[in-house]
């Protein structure tokens, strides 16, 4: 450790900000949340086509039973996270803020599918070959658990003509407040390492690097201890800087390579998976357990017990809030995700989805937007942008409806990290307009 202190930590090259870390629940162990009375499982929890429902109202389902199958390659299976009776299937508001079709299941007991290995024993021997690994991951409905929820089997199928030599494991968790990945790394490091080996075999790569922000020293040391004898897998502490956990930023920090504009990480010879996803991969391949639960951080400055819960997918957010000591009086906004990229939810019955990493309760005085002033042309947003864009100009272009020009200025490269809005001294809604511009461009693409 002493040797680490005098050499500079790795980080991405341009931009970035450093918001207050506020990791209130970093030392709180993961606790399984009691089973809810009812779950609502959306069929579109992932990027890509929504899954096709295979159950009907009145059916009895077991925990882990498939209830919606993937449609097309970029899609994901959905499993029942509880046992019980299928209720109404209708449009329900989810954490995206829009209504999507969801299957509600009234919980009765906890009757698991027999083939799932529920024990805690570590299975280190990997029997499956690359092809089987990918198919098992696809079967288990594993998606990226960092937030974007991109189907993992798609990431593991590297397009032809692209050479991948590194697997990067994202343990950065650069969003303030969130600690779900942090706790997982401390409590399940061995499982994560097996998961990494599985992913390495699936991709056929020899090297894997776990990137962890330096504010999680305990996690870094845990992995360093466990990986002493392992060759090929290493841990890299990273500078505490937002958005270190952005896929492109992580590749730049760890490998010093740049993903070309509009390209994929595979173009830079790397595939990035989140630690949560890696753990889910371990469970899917070694334990045949589908992705039906995840760690969710419930936190906030006034929350009584900031916690990390192991939650079944589809549990209403209100259950988590009650378990964490209720909603404090001064709550102004309840956000799904972190404070930087998360989205305020409009309804407490919103279900936890595969991509829900945290529920954040923001006090009133911090939650509301400040008054907007004119642009000073100070250039702070340009300095902060990790993608090297000119956010204030993109705002103007989007506002004027000139999305074609904005496209020329690489608006589509924006990763929506919100650093520009965070630093703006005039409180300008830069990201809002950039998102609008991106939405308009996507609209015009359609026939």
């Amino acid at each position: 450790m002493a040797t680490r202190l005098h050499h500079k930590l790795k980080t991405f090259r341009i931009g970035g900000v450093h918001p207050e870390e506020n990791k209130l629940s970093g030392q709180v162990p993961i606790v399984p949340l009691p089973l809810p009375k009812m779950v609502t499982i959306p069929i579109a929890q992932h990027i890509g086509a929504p899954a096709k429902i295979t159950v009907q109202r009145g059916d009895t389902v077991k925990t882990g039973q498939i209830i919606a199958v993937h449609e097309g390659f970029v899609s994901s299976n959905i499993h029942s996270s509880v046992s019980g009776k299928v209720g109404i299937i209708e449009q329900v508001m989810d954490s995206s803020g829009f209504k999507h079709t969801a299957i509600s299941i009234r919980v009765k007991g906890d009757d698991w599918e027999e083939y799932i290995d529920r024990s805690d024993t570590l299975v280190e021997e990997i029997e499956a070959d690359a092809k089987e690994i990918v198919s098992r991951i696809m079967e288990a409905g594993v998606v990226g658990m960092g937030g974007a929820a991109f189907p993992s089997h798609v990431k593991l199928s590297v397009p032809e003509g692209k050479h991948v030599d590194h697997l990067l494991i994202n343990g950065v968790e650069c969003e303030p407040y969130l600690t779900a990945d942090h706790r997982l790394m401390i409590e399940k490091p061995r499982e994560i390492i097996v998961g990494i080996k599985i992913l390495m075999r699936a991709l056929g790569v020899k090297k894997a690097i776990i990137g962890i922000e330096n504010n999680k020293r305990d996690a870094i040391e845990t992995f360093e201890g466990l990986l002493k004898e392992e060759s090929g897998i290493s841990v890299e502490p990273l500078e505490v800087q937002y958005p270190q956990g952005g896929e492109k930023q992580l590749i730049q920090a760890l490998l010093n390579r740049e993903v070309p504009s509009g390209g994929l990480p595979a173009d830079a010879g790397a595939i990035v998976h989140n630690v949560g996803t890696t753990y889910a991969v371990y469970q899917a391949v070694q334990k045949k357990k589908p992705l039906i639960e995840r760690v969710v951080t419930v936190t906030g400055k006034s929350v009584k017990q900031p916690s990390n819960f192991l939650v079944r997918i589809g549990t209403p957010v209100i259950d988590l809030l009650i378990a964490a000591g209720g909603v404090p009086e001064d709550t102004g906004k309840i956000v799904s995700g972190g404070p930087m990229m998360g989205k305020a939810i409009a309804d407490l019955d919103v279900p936890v989805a595969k991509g829900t990493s945290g529920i954040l309760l923001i006090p009133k005085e911090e939650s509301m937007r400040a008054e907007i002033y004119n642009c000073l042309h100070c250039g702070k947003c340009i300095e902060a942008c990790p993608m090297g864009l000119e956010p204030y100009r993109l705002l103007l272009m989007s506002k004027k409806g000139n999305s074609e020009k904005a496209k020329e200025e690489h608006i589509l490269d924006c990763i929506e990290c919100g650093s520009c809005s965070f630093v703006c001294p005039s409180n300008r809604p830069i990201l809002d307009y950039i998102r609008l511009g991106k939405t308009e461009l996507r609209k015009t693409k359609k026939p």
Partner: protein
Amino acid sequence: MNQIIVYTVIILTGIGILAAVVIYFVSRKFAVQEDTRVSAVESVLPNTNCGGCGQPGCHAFAMAVVNAGDLSALHCPVGGNAVMKQVADILGITAVEKDPYIAVVRCSGSFEYRKKTNIYDGTGSCKIAAALYSGDTACSYGCLGMGDCVEVCDFEAMYMDEKTGLPVIIEDKCTACNACVKECPKDILELWPKGKKNQRIYVACLNEEKGSTARKECAVACSGCSKCFEACRYDAITMTNSLAAIDPDKCKLCMECVDTCDVHNIITANVTPEKIQQANEQRLKREERERKKREAEKLAAQQNGNETTPQA
């Protein structure tokens, strides 16, 4: 001293005359030959450059008209038939009459009927809010009420009603330029034929949820009860996804459907209450007649049935 002034005046005058001569010849040589009809047409157009005709502006419209030499596909909604007649006269072609249109607001979810379920605190633009989430009320189809439409209106024909939170269209000023229709992210605004005697009728709801859900979301939502659909004698009303819609081309403005709506959300313009009442009475009488007729038929069928094929 005087000499300097004299020389300066002479030199500058010389340059001026020289430049004038050069410019004269250059302008002759490189003169842009524009059809005189273009400027003639342009002079009769409203010159608001609103883009309602689908062209980038009035000049472009004038050029398009002159080039096309046919008015079937080109129409200035702002000027209307009067202006198009003038244009046709200039070009010596026949004018094509088109029914005047007006924008209508297809949402009645005022503050009173559609309670807020959350507070939107983001940027005050419907477009941004619509890209973020389904809205600050339970209804995900309704008006967001931040007035993007009012902002784009070049004719001051709209304003936001502070009591209802909905946009209002001023009939005399709306030119049907389509700007608000294009701007609205929820497609609440729609161009509607102005109608005979300026009378028109439309369903002011776009909520496609099932009846019970829709009514929970908004007290005046269309629940898809189909009463208006059944009342219509001209097949002008269609029901899709628990939502009634009136086809203005088929509608004969008989107003018989208006009173069938439980929540009075079939909106009429410039129709007297008396006419609606009359229409309603007419409908009730007709329905009564039909009912009696049906009963008589049923009775006759029953008797017939009893005589020929007795059924269990």
